[in-house]
């Protein structure tokens, strides 16, 4: 398998903060990655390192087989519009889209045109005067229409309404099916994108805590619901990730179950429910119940 990105023991320290702490990972070509984590976990710093915008304190970074820092051939295969992207003061969206084809060899102007219409982006309004959602739409359109082999979406949905978010997910899925490429999606809204993700990376306080296939991760936990004695009997000595209860009923989240165990549970009159990716990520990162709202 071809690795598009290869990180080995990469750290980024600012004076008092370690934003990225000894991260090693490989990204394979042609997949959609979810880069998940709380605010300030180091998501944007990690993406800045991958795009040569920040300099690593230690470790090695390879993107398309070479360090991305000041490497034009690597960088022109990457698109990274950050969530807090700054634009020249006098720019309107139309200037962004006029300049984009000079920088992105795969830029599809007709597709950009279509997306501008679908997102109802006012391209002649000064960027400074766009709403947060419209500003996000500029980044989303650049990210999609640039068709860069490695595309980063840094919290692309900020301020986008539900319709626009759905539009973004639909277009992304359709476009990568037609033009396969590697996409890294950094987001808080885990459940919304969970169907898109093929691989999940969770970063917490600069450390990579989950690096797993999304399917595997989803199957790695089950919630068992039923009367307290029956559930307790079934769970036994297993590791309990989470426990909830109302009256005589309880719901317990435990690890992966084999088909035989599933049958056993159902025979015992218990209900088995899947655990959403979001709940799983929250529980795996050891957050307390109160922290569950990631935002």
């Amino acid at each position, binding site marked *: 398998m071809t690795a598009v990105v290869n990180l080995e023991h990469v750290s980024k320290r600012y004076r008092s903060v370690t934003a990225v702490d000894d991260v090693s990972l490989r990204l*394979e070509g*042609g997949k959609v990655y979810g880069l998940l984590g709380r605010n300030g976990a180091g998501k944007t710093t990690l993406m800045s390192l991958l795009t040569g915008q920040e300099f690593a304190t230690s470790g090695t970074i390879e993107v398309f087989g070479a360090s991305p820092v000041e490497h*034009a051939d690597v960088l022109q295969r*990457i698109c990274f519009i950050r969530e807090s992207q700054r634009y020249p003061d*006098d720019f309107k969206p139309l200037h962004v889209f006029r300049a984009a084809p000079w920088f992105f060899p*795969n830029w599809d102007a007709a597709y950009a045109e279509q997306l501008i219409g679908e997102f109802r982006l006012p391209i002649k309004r000064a960027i400074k005067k766009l709403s947060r959602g419209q500003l996000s739409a500029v980044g989303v359109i650049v990210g999609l229409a640039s068709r860069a082999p490695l595309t980063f979406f840094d919290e692309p949905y900020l301020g986008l309404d539900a319709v626009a978010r759905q539009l973004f997910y639909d277009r992304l899925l359709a476009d990568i099916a037609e033009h396969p490429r590697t996409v890294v999606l950094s987001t808080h809204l885990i459940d919304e994108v969970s169907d898109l993700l093929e691989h999940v990376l969770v970063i917490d306080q600069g450390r990579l805590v989950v690096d797993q296939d999304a399917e595997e991760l989803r199957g790695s936990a089950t919630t068992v619901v039923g009367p307290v004695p029956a559930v307790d009997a079934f769970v036994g000595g297993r590791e309990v990730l989470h426990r909830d209860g109302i009256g005589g009923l309880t719901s317990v989240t435990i690890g992966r179950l084999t088909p035989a165990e599933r049958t056993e549970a159902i025979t015992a009159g218990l209900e088995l429910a899947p655990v959403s990716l979001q709940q799983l990520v929250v529980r795996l990162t050891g957050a307390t119940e109160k922290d569950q709202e990631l935002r």
Partner: protein
Amino acid sequence: MNAAATAPGSLDAPLTRSTSSSRILAVFRLHFVNPMIVAWMPLMIYSFIFLVNWLIWLVVALASDGKTAGMSQGTSWSGASLFIFVWLLVIAVQAMNRTFHFALGFGTTRRDYYLGTLAALVLLAAGWSVIFGILAAIEEATGGWGLGGHMFAAVYFGDDGAFARTWYVFLLMLFFASIGLIAGSLFVRWKSIGLIGFFAVITLLILAAGTIIAFTQSWPAVGSFLESLGFAGIYALLLIPVVIAVPLGYLLLRRATARS
């Protein structure tokens, strides 16, 4: 993962560490993608300044019964044209700050960005000095726009003819642009601390130079040295800070990041 093998995400093309002139050109064009700020706006402001000046000359001429000799003398010290130099400085600052962040997001290397930006600034300085030179020539040919007024052919640009004047203006523009270049890259690198530190150091250097000259009583010598240089020599001296600023700006930008 057969799909990945054919995906553009796993481009098999070997990477080479080349400077692509097309990316420098892209940065160059980026500075002109919105001609409002580099061309139309300063043209409009210039036109307005000129109009106001001309109206004042007209009022003065009418009030003094058309005796324009005194006015020609007075307005030859006009600073009305100096706005464009500051404008160029601001454009250079913005280029290093805002546009730099944007171009990094579009996958530009700092090196290509710097080269493209330098080219854009030199072209802007050249373009504006030609416009300036032509307006100054018209001013002289029309006897101060018919009223003995001066705006472009002011005393600061000497009396060595239209071509020399255009050259001096060009050098002065390069000087202002390089101050903007340094100020902008200092800001990107170290924010306002870098900027304040830089101007503090420059101020101290100028003070030190002045003190040394004063204590060694060499002001007359400095004066006669500058006099011997003439306009051509003094304006050429501006190339010294320009030549220092260009590599210095790159050194600063090379390690700058796009954190906001």
